[in-house]
């Protein structure tokens, strides 16, 4: 038992650090350890599982939400969000810095990914805030932090993958993410307000004043975003559509917005489709590999062995959560979020369920953990996105994001103490799919 666990870990660490692609590594580790420890027709299992894992109906929402994000990325929504939100934030302490948080919160409700949210909102806010004399570090940090809401506020690509792997209702996961998402956004805004009050040069001294006419025009600018939120979330929570159907409606809505903003043409549409193919294939390979590795680990009895080992430590539920935050924090330094979740899930999910936590709650917890990994160097994806937009060194961006990272850790602990934050809403509704 121990030898098979050590072999799996050694193979995984070896292949990954050599630089073998994550999806292929997962297959390699699963197949290699089965060939070593079990006499069974590995190729039969491998073929069947990789086909089954990539034809799961619940997964269809994934390429669709990816496609929707790529289409929206090529519209003028970035400008709409800034012009729509800026007039409403000028009176708050922290002023237009809040556009980052509010923009990400709104965009997260029509986007399944953090990178898409960060890139879309930041394209406009970073230049605008710098031009108006806002503290650049605070502008970058709040964008890095708020961008991660893309995964927490539904729709969420990570939640779809977790739902498929953990066999939890994706729709319930989506609902479970709403309240934590809004609370986290609120926490960011409170921090920005306090920080701006204490640090005089965080915001420009000259008043950005907006007339009520501009405010009303701002609301009109937000029209397309609100239209799409109503289409996607409304159809799901109204009980009309499953997440997959909502995703298809979302693609249609994104195309309508693109046409309305006059950014729709054969070039942008085909570029969006090809980019969606690239991301979908990457995720598809990882999911298939993860499902196979999970089955292989099951055959080798690894999850049970680890569970017994952890049980012997007698950590208690909170101790387990603290340990998981630590482990995921360390893993997040070398792995990107999705890979981290799919590799560890076969072991951590049974542990957490045995400790009395709800799998729904664990989904939200994992999303938060992934979000933290997104803004910690050396492999934090949101940091890369912001680096791509600003050209600032990674170290400076990650220092700017640090306060928001701390807020996330505190929030995750709060979620562990009060699981109801995530579980309250899903318990209230009965839905389709």
């Amino acid at each position, binding site marked *: 038992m121990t030898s098979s666990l050590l072999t799996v870990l050694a193979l995984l660490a070896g292949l990954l650090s050599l630089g*073998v692609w994550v999806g292929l590594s997962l297959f390699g580790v699963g197949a290699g350890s089965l060939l070593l420890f079990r006499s069974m027709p590995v*190729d039969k299992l491998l073929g069947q599982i990789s086909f089954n894992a990539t034809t799961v109906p619940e997964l269809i929402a994934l390429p669709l939400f990816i496609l929707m994000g790529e289409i929206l*990325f090529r519209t003028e929504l970035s400008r709409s969000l800034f012009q729509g939100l800026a007039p409403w934030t000028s009176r708050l302490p922290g002023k237009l810095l809040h556009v980052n948080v509010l923009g990400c919160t709104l965009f997260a409700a029509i986007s399944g990914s953090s990178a898409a949210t960060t890139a879309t909102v930041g394209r406009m806010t970073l230049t605008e805030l710098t031009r108006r004399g806002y503290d650049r570090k605070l502008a970058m940090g709040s964008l890095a932090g708020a961008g991660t809401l893309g995964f927490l506020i539904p729709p969420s690509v990570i939640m779809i993958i977790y739902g498929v792997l953990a066999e939890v209702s994706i729709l319930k996961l989506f609902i479970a993410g709403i309240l934590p998402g809004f609370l986290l956004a609120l926490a960011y805004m409170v921090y920005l307000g306090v920080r701006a009050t204490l640090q005089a040069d965080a915001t420009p001294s000259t008043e950005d004043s907006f007339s009520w006419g501009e405010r009303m025009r701002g609301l009109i600018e937000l029209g397309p975003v609100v239209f799409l939120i109503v289409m996607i979330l409304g159809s799901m929570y109204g009980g009309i559509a499953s997440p997959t*159907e909502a*995703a298809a409606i979302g693609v249609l809505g994104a195309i309508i917005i693109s046409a309305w903003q006059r950014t729709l043409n054969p070039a942008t549409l085909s570029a969006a489709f090809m980019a969606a193919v690239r991301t*979908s294939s990457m995720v598809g390979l990882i999911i298939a590999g993860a499902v196979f590795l999970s089955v292989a680990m099951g055959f080798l009895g690894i999850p049970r062995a680890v569970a017994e080992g952890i049980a012997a430590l007698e950590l208690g539920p909170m101790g387990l959560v603290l340990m998981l935050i630590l482990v995921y924090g360390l893993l997040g330094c070398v792995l990107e979020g999705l890979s981290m979740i799919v590799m560890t899930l076969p072991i951590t999910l049974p542990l957490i369920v045995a400790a009395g936590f709800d799998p729904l709650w664990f989904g939200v917890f994992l999303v938060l953990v992934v979000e933290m990994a997104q803004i910690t160097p050396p492999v934090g994806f949101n940091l890369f996105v912001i680096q791509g937009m600003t050209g600032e060194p990674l170290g400076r961006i990650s220092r700017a994001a640090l306060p928001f990272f701390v807020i996330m850790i505190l929030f995750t602990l709060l979620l562990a103490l009060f699981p109801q934050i995530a579980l309250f809403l899903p318990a209230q509704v009965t839905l389709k799919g």
Partner: protein
Amino acid sequence: MRHFLRLVDGTAAAAAVVAALCLALLTVIVLAEIAVVWLFNFSLDFSWEYAAFLMCAAFFLGMGWTLRQGGHVRVSLFAHHLPPGPTRALDMMATLAGLVISGFLTFALGSLAWGAFVGGSRTFTPTATPLAVPQGVATLGMAILTLVLVARLVRLATGEEPDEKPADGGIPSET
């Protein structure tokens, strides 16, 4: 060798275009399903099954081109800290390991598809789709990925740049 590399690149790119068409068709099928359920309160019996097979086809047919574009996630622990020579040597080892795994996967999917073809297995749905078709497409995609890995190994050995930069300016890919 030039011809081989060009042929592999062309095949992978063509398969990716087919993958994009699969995504488009998949979107249309799901939208059509929603429309007929709404308007006529009846369900297209093939829609979910075909949508799932199209998703599978899009995943696999896009894999080779995605690798060519550097779109698959990998950990680069050493790449930034080593001189170009050892970096290239490591990359060749990683590509070789990837090639072995991908080759085995092609074989596994191929035997699955072949078994379905010989045994005439079909889905247990009203459409009774022969499983050899979607499984054959998955095998084809995996075979293309394997070829792209071979081409990558050749490029590394001849000192060429192994990955192409994406030209479509998409969102930096993660998930």
